[in-house]
């Protein structure tokens, strides 16, 4: 199912954070949303996931108008987002972290079944540590994998990933890259990726949309974007994007 944004506008007082942005995310593709700080990427994600209500414009998912729905309603439609600041349950174990998601998205499931389901998810993402480690002892990269695993609970169809690789080492980034590719190919999940790390985006995305100061300034394949002059200007000081 595709996600289509039409002329979305979001203002905060006098500041226009998102200014008439339109694009679509095709079914099963991985779309990257990039731009300098303050270009409106996270605001746009918040609009799509229901945390903000756009001032004008429409957001359609599979043809259905989802503009202005509440976050938990959007969640029920199969759209899941992750957050820049990772929210895990620090004093619960890795397994229990996922179990919370499983046990409470499905009210009839009992704890043992939730445990099995959680184990399957952790195995699927190849979680690098034992399942009974407390989440507060994980490093940032592992926490991000954990929150990715939690996002997969409930079998979402569209994933909104907000700055997933911020703060990760190249090795950890590679792991996330392979996770995203795996999830996209094997589970057919559509992914909209908000990012700063351009190399990561070039590697993983099928197409890229570039924002600057709330406006869309470019859209296209990675190779096209990397040669686009407007984009290079926006990222001042970068002579090359690689």
């Amino acid at each position: 199912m595709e996600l289509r944004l039409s002329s979305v506008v979001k203002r905060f007082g006098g500041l226009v954070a998102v200014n008439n942005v339109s694009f679509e995310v095709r079914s099963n593709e991985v779309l990257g949303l990039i731009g300098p700080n303050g270009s409106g990427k996270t605001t746009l994600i918040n609009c799509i996931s229901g945390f903000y209500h756009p001032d004008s414009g429409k957001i359609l998912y599979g043809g259905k108008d989802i503009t202005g729905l509440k976050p938990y309603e959007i969640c029920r439609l199969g759209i899941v987002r992750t957050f820049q600041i990772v929210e895990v349950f620090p004093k619960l174990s890795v397994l229990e972290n996922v179990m919370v998601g499983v046990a409470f998205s499905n009210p009839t499931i009992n704890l043992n079944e939730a445990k099995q389901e959680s184990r399957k998810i952790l195995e699927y993402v190849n979680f690098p540590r034992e399942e009974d480690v407390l989440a507060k002892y994980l490093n940032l990269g592992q926490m991000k994998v954990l929150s990715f695993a939690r996002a997969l609970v409930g079998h979402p169809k569209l994933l909104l990933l907000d700055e997933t690789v911020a703060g990760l080492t190249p090795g950890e980034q590679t792991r996330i890259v392979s996770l995203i590719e795996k999830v996209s190919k094997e589970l057919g999940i559509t992914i909209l990726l908000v990012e700063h790390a351009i190399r990561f985006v070039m590697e993983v995305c099928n197409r890229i949309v570039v924002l600057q100061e709330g406006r869309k300034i470019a859209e296209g394949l990675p190779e096209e974007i990397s040669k686009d002059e407007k984009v290079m200007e926006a990222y001042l000081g970068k002579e090359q994007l690689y």
Partner: protein
Amino acid sequence: MKKISAARIELTWKNVIMLLCVALIIATPFIVRDSYVSHIFITALLYGTLAASFDFGVGYLGIVNFGYAAFMGLGAYTSAIAAISFGINPWLGLLLGGAVAGLLGLATGVLTLRLYGIFVACFTWFLGMALMFLIAVTPEITRGYLGLSVPHFPNVWILDFTDPLRLSYFAIIAILSLPILFLMLYLGNRTRMGLAFRALRGSEPAAMACGINPLKYRVMNFVITCFIAGTLGSFYAHYIRILTPSLLQTSKTIEILAIAYLGGRRSLWGSIPAAFLIISVLEFLRPLEAYRFIIYGIILILIMIFYPGGLARLITRKELF
């Protein structure tokens, strides 16, 4: 190699000590030869369990019930009045006291557990005081400050409740407190409800994002702790056999809180050794008369500074039970 891991049942220091404590409790009737000592044991076990139950709210959900003693007192008066005025068997009174306290917990919980932190503490504090004064100003029913005389448990089987050593009472409190403790531990760590509690404690927004309704689980937790307080209060009524409104006063809640904190928040079981410790120390210092409270206060402060995790963390390094 010390593995940092979550709850499991295995051979650890903590489990060994717990087993020893259980064994000690079972052996007590054969050791105790003095009604003064048996009173200490009974009171310690009672308040230890009360503190553990208090901790079920504080440690698992951060709900500080500052009127906790009043719920206990409510259970006590309920069972007492039921026995005196309606001839209800004290054994049934245990359940009745728990039920009444639990119902009050439900009513107030639904209304006020949307609040957080200090506001819950304030509200429950006022509620406790209101209950205490309510009992004081209705002497027609409760005999207020004149004191209400309560019948003892009816003798059953080999248990003789007129025995001055009060060993039968000790048996009853042991039979009550150990299952209550294990029940709370089970609910808190092995049920879906307990998972919700711990998730809410960790990060409420994340828990909500997973579909957990905070109010529902806060109320469930609160009702459980109030029910337990009521039941234990009923026991206390038929044990001490004289009730006054001062049973419900805030300072009693603070004693319970001190035991819970000394035992280690979130540990539940730590409250039992903590209760024995505090009550023994207080009794031991009795020759110092009023000064003993100063010593007690200093000891408490020192422990909170140097061992903030309480007794439970001294014995085990595990974060969770």
